[in-house]
């Protein structure tokens, strides 16, 4: 932190006075304008308490203690609620940098999930049925995304003037991207009168139950990959 303030002071001193107001305006809204001009040797911040504890345990802290560190972004908090996946989803929902709205929408969807699950919980009669109901909306999100992640993908590859849809493995990152994208696509296909949080909540609950549009889409893709297995060798030939 102190590093960052020192760096900031340097910045302000270095610039001629007429650029100062512009900088101060930027500083008010977010700490640094987009791709920051931090030199390469600036370390990424380690903002989670668990990670810090790990560092201390493995006694690597002393190695990086002297290195300058980039300031953490506003969404990188040490709060108990911090969840990288939720953050990811919020960023996918976001349009034109309106993160506030995106976050509100996702949180509202969580609220809807929670309300419906709590009501179901109270309506359930037996303790076994109650135990089955998942109440944590974040867990439901994790489960929904895990259920809608594809394991294979089709790549168009041109051989002899014909484009074949060739099945192949998929990277972890792309499969996560596809899962979130499909969930949101399924949500946007809604009645005009239904609001985003409600529909998103339904989609998440469906996907967590291994039913619904998104899971079907994933299964269709798998089926297509299975059908096209004869083309698989085009991947390397």
């Amino acid at each position, binding site marked *: 932190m102190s590093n960052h303030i020192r760096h900031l002071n340097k910045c302000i001193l270095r610039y001629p006075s007429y650029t100062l107001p512009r900088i101060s305006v930027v500083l008010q809204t977010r700490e640094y304008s987009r791709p920051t001009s931090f030199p390469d040797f600036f370390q990424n911040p380690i903002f989670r308490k668990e990670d810090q504890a790990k560092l201390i345990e493995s006694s690597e802290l002393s190695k990086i203690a002297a290195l300058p560190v980039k300031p953490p972004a506003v969404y990188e908090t040490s*709060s*108990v*609620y911090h969840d990288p996946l939720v953050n990811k989803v919020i960023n996918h929902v976001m349009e034109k940098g309106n993160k506030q709205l995106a976050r509100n929408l*996702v*949180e*509202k969807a*969580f*609220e809807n999930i*929670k*309300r419906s699950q*709590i*009501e179901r*919980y*109270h309506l359930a009669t037996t303790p076994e049925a109650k135990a089955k109901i998942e*109440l*944590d*909306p974040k867990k439901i999100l994790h489960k929904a995304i895990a259920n809608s992640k594809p394991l294979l993908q089709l790549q168009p590859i041109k051989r002899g003037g014909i484009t074949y849809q060739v099945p192949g493995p998929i990277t972890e990152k792309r499969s996560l991207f596809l899962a979130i994208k499909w969930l949101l696509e399924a949500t946007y296909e809604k009645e005009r009168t239904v609001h985003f949080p409600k529909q998103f909540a339904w989609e998440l609950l469906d996907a967590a139950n291994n039913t619904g549009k998104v899971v079907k889409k994933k299964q269709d893709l798998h089926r297509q990959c299975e059908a096209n297995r004869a083309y698989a060798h085009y991947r390397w030939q």
Partner: protein
Amino acid sequence: MLSRSWRHLARRYSQATTFRTNENSPAQHSEKQEGLFYTMKPELCKQLFSHGGFPKSFMQQTKTFTETAVMVRQPALDLISCIKASDLNQPAIRYVLYGEKGSGKSLTLAHVLHYAHEDGYLIVHVPWVSEWLRRVPRHKEMSNSQTNEGFVDLPLDAAAWLIHFKSQNQTLLKSENLKVSKEYVWSKREKTEAGSPLHTLVEHGINRVKYACDVVDVLIDEIKMLSSSKQCKTFVAIDGFNSFFYPLTRLSTPTKKTVKPDEVTLTTSFLKLTHNDWTNGVIVVTADQLAVPDDHQESFLPRYLLYKKGFDHLDPFVPIEVGRYNEKEFQSCVGYYRDRLWLRGPPEVETELKFTSACNPYRFMEQCAPL
């Protein structure tokens, strides 16, 4: 180490057990129950609050929690003890509830309303003044008043309020000693005889929506007279009272002229009621920032919200501040939310939420929602 874990256990246990009270009658509530939740019976809720009275978010909460539980808080206790101690033969005392947004003014009012209902008061309750003056749905019925020149009637709203009044005072209206003092002639064929019971008047307003506003006006005069003559004791509760004094409403006449609050007949009727020229009554109003538009929400203090006019109108009154949760109330609320599964997660969550919500009841509830 051992003692620490014991202490921790004891704290968890006390949290788990002491957020509820079995004392469900507000008249019996005292400092002992402060910060604890008491449950209202569903049939009572239906009778008192089916046409409004609870904030919308609280209604949603009751649905999710499958019960209606209200926290016993200091302002309500103060108010109830004040009402108990006051001499009803003196002119009606006016109480003004004020506080930040979301601090629980409406729920305090609901708690006191429950007390009044139990204590046999005739209840005159306006759930939310802005519903009349500031909310303009697609079919807002407005007409020029037949009786008062230059005034505007809101017949549908008035009729809805009469239904509310009727359902809140079902039992009292059945008793025979509430009688109309003089004859009212509505049209050539319709009139209400002197000495006919009060509920015929209310029924007339509901059936003939055209006259609803006039009926409300007359009804309020009658109620004042009846309680002054000791036929009944009256409890007046008006939520969002400061809406009557904001310079403009969102209503406009067919000729596009904007309407001032004092040009609405309902306003004049209820302002008559909040004058203290009658006895045997209690008047509780709230001054709420949410009742007026954004440009007049800088402070939550009554003098600012009510303007000079409203302040002079109510003066002298007893101000009662509804504040944020204190430590004990917050802990009991946490216990309640944990019991209802609204709040989950490790105990560190509480300190964080306490900090971010600043112990504001509504914000606390809201911030628990996506967790």
